[in-house]
């Protein structure tokens, strides 16, 4: 780089040359700042897909972004794709954050720019791994409630995914989507209530490091008598539910209503 500090060492230089080199240095700096600024992004209307591993987040993303459902495996890193929901609107960015416990904390990096969050749950296995799903959801709820008050709260959707895998049994009247929603809602409410009770009476163990830092996770406060947790009474805001499904290998051209994601598309379009 052109180093202005080097100039005094050459006494024969005229002042105009010094000024010129100084100017050059400033110009370089300005160009650099411009470039770093440009790449640092600022969009502010992200749609997040979060949830436990194997729920189908990446499959949903690929369906939204490429109009075809690609086979997927466990994600190692975050995906972000631009998706256009309606031709009139600007495209919005859908971010798919891996659900593995060791990397799911990345959600905090995106929360500040988030418009809406979809928590994807595999409806066909939620009855088996309810506690794990609830732990993840608890982290999300906690993160949402501890956002600074100046920021608008992102809309929260709980997506009962893979509803096509549910056998809708004797209740012929209920569609598989509504069945999936009911199941996911019931199980998650039960598990979150357990977590709330376990915490409310407890004395936590302090974290290492700075004193007075908030250690226990909140985010499960509810209005109503005794504060029993339910999504309808959750203090953090409104929670919507949807049931969806995708089929691997299917390509959806033009007629977006035909696939299992039309409800999600609508919701995202509304909240984007």
């Amino acid at each position: 780089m052109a180093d202005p500090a080097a100039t005094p060492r050459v006494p024969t230089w005229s002042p105009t040359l010094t000024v010129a080199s100084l100017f050059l240095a400033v110009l370089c700096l300005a160009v650099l700042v411009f470039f770093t600024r440009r790449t640092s992004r600022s969009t502010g209307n992200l749609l997040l897909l979060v949830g436990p591993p194997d729920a189908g987040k990446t499959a949903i993303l690929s369906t939204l972004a490429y109009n075809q459902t690609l086979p997927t495996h466990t994600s190692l890193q975050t995906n972000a794709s631009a998706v256009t929901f309606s031709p009139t609107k600007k495209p919005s960015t859908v971010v798919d954050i891996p659900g593995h416990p060791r990397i799911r904390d990345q959600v905090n990096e995106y929360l500040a720019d988030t418009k809406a969050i979809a928590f994807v749950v595999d409806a066909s296995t939620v009855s088996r791994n309810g506690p794990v799903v609830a732990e993840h959801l608890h982290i999300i709820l906690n993160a949402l409630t501890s956002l600074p008050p100046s920021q608008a709260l992102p809309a929260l959707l709980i997506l009962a995914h893979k509803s096509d895998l549910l056998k809708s049994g004797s209740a012929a009247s209920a569609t598989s989507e509504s069945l999936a929603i009911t199941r996911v809602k019931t199980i998650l409410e039960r598990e979150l209530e357990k977590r709330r009770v376990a915490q409310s009476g407890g004395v936590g163990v302090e974290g290492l490091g700075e004193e007075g830092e908030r250690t226990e996770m909140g985010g499960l406060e509810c209005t109503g008598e005794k504060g029993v947790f339910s999504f309808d009474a959750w203090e953090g805001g409104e929670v919507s539910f949807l049931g969806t499904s995708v089929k691997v290998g299917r390509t959806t051209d033009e007629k977006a209503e035909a696939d299992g994601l039309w409800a999600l598309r609508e919701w995202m379009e509304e909240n984007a």
Partner: protein
Amino acid sequence: MLDHCSISHKGGIVLWSRSFTPDASQLAASSASPVNSLIREALIEGRTTEEKYEKDGYAVKWTFVNDLELIFVVAYQRILQLTYVEDLLGALKALFVKMFQPFLATFVASLHAINSGKTTVVEAASAFSFADAFDGWDKMFDKLLRSLEDKAAQDRKSRLRPVVRAPVAESSSPPSEELETLPTQSSDAPQDEQQIARNVQALKNRLRGRGGKRGGRGGGRADAASGRESIPGSDSESTAPKRKVTAKAQRKWGDEAPTETDMASLDFSADSAGATGASHDLQALVDEASLGTRTRDGMYEVKDWEFSRDEDSAIANALKPADAKATPTLGALGSLFSRLTGSKVLTEQDLKPVLDGMKQHLMKKNVAMEIADKVCEGVGESLVGKKVGGFQTTNAAVRLALSTSLTRILTPKTSTDLLLSIRTKLSSPLTSTQQRMPYSITFVGVNGVGKSTNLSKVCFWLIQNGLRVLIAACDTFRSGAVEQLRVHVRNLSMLGVNGATDSKGRVELFERGYGKDAAGIAREAIAFAKDNDFDVVLIDTAGRMQDNEPLMRALAKLVAVNTPDKIIFVGEALVGNEAVDQLTKFDRALRDFSSASGAGKGRGIDGMLVTKWDTVDDKVGAALSMTYVTGQPIIFVGCGQTYTDLRQLRVANVVQAILAD
């Protein structure tokens, strides 16, 4: 041979995959597929440097392309010794990237919509058609796999072929080869005894100090052998070492004792430029010609021969060493410029000094050497081929990657909320015949790390949470161990809880004196707790060295008999390289011995408690070593002398402390 092969993006989208058996394809579609478990248990946990990953009878190997964020995975049955998998992965990588580079680049860009210009990406994204994009790849893959398999088969055959066949047999067509090998072998079998007798004779002769006396048949055989063996001399340079091994093996299988003349006449391995060189070279020429027309024998011949044909030129091109690609360097100025424009690609040479420095730094922070090595290697692997932009130095890039990797290793993958799991167990619904079982926690570890002290700290915390705790004194070996716990129980029962002045009846000691069987005492304690309505049983065990097998067996028995809900390994933060050894051995001993004595799978360690944290300042490497070895979380940290000195680990703090200078 292979079961599954896939090419995918790191974000989880599978670009291409193929299963070779119906079972494998079924498995690959489920969430328990080998690829999924590879990613979850090896790659995300930072164990990227290991050679291969094994799961459910599958062996899985993988490789990365960092700039395009691709993972190539091959899974096969573990019992198969497939030698060509590494080659296959390397070839796949080169070929795939070469064939689809532009498409892959746009695809990857479309998955990073946050940072890039958007509008162009959107149009490209909707126009993606993955089926068409990889058109022709199937065929290419088939060809590649077939050639590699052939090569491997030939290689193996040539290694296994025990005797030299007459030139007549060699001119036959390849399919009959196997058939012909058998009769020759069996006809040779009766000769073996003669040969052995002759060998013994020859050995005797040699021991007497005489020179080599040759059997009548020996000369002819040696010639025949030499005819075979001189192939390597005419082969390409790279095959020479491999063929050398075969040559040695054949000499052993031959009928001759290794007399000195034999040695001389059989020594074709390194250079045939000796005194007898000319005649052997002639033979070699003849032999090679017959080979060339006869069969696709010899692995390197296959490659050159097949790949150089016009149809396969793509494969051949892609597999050529990438020396032609090396761009002319513009010196320091050029690298500075490429750095400025954000297109500096990290190479191994760039990374090596920085990584070495990082390794030294980690070791200074008391990370075990082995672990520091592996972590740095993993970081290096994830960075090679990446682009660094702007003024970001290599050092900074490595530092960032290291911090991400450390965070990933230290972040627990299972819940560390002990209270929640205790409450869940206690409130789980019971059938009328069942009785509520207390939640039991066993503390294990080597001598003098603070098992009893930290057990009492955990006990204090549980009491504060309104639970009734029974402490089982299963350290029946060290004198004073029971008394130590008794003092703790006395102290704890005098402390107030929830406004009550003391906590009598909330904590009790279960002891049976010294010298008894610890497993029995633990069982009695759990039964006692069940009858007397205790919520939690804390089992204190005697400290033991990880190498002491009888004691480790005793510990495994305690675990197998009582099946505690949590096994907590207590280790001190002062430990350095020893941490790896302690944890691996404890974990393995518990798994092996408890699965041997009881039914079902062995139990390992469920979590760790790191003690004496206050003594190490920022040299907190032990925490990293421990979590890396077991993959289990650090549940608590002990940091002082009083009951309240129990803390939860903050990952961010530890990472910061490790990276701090």
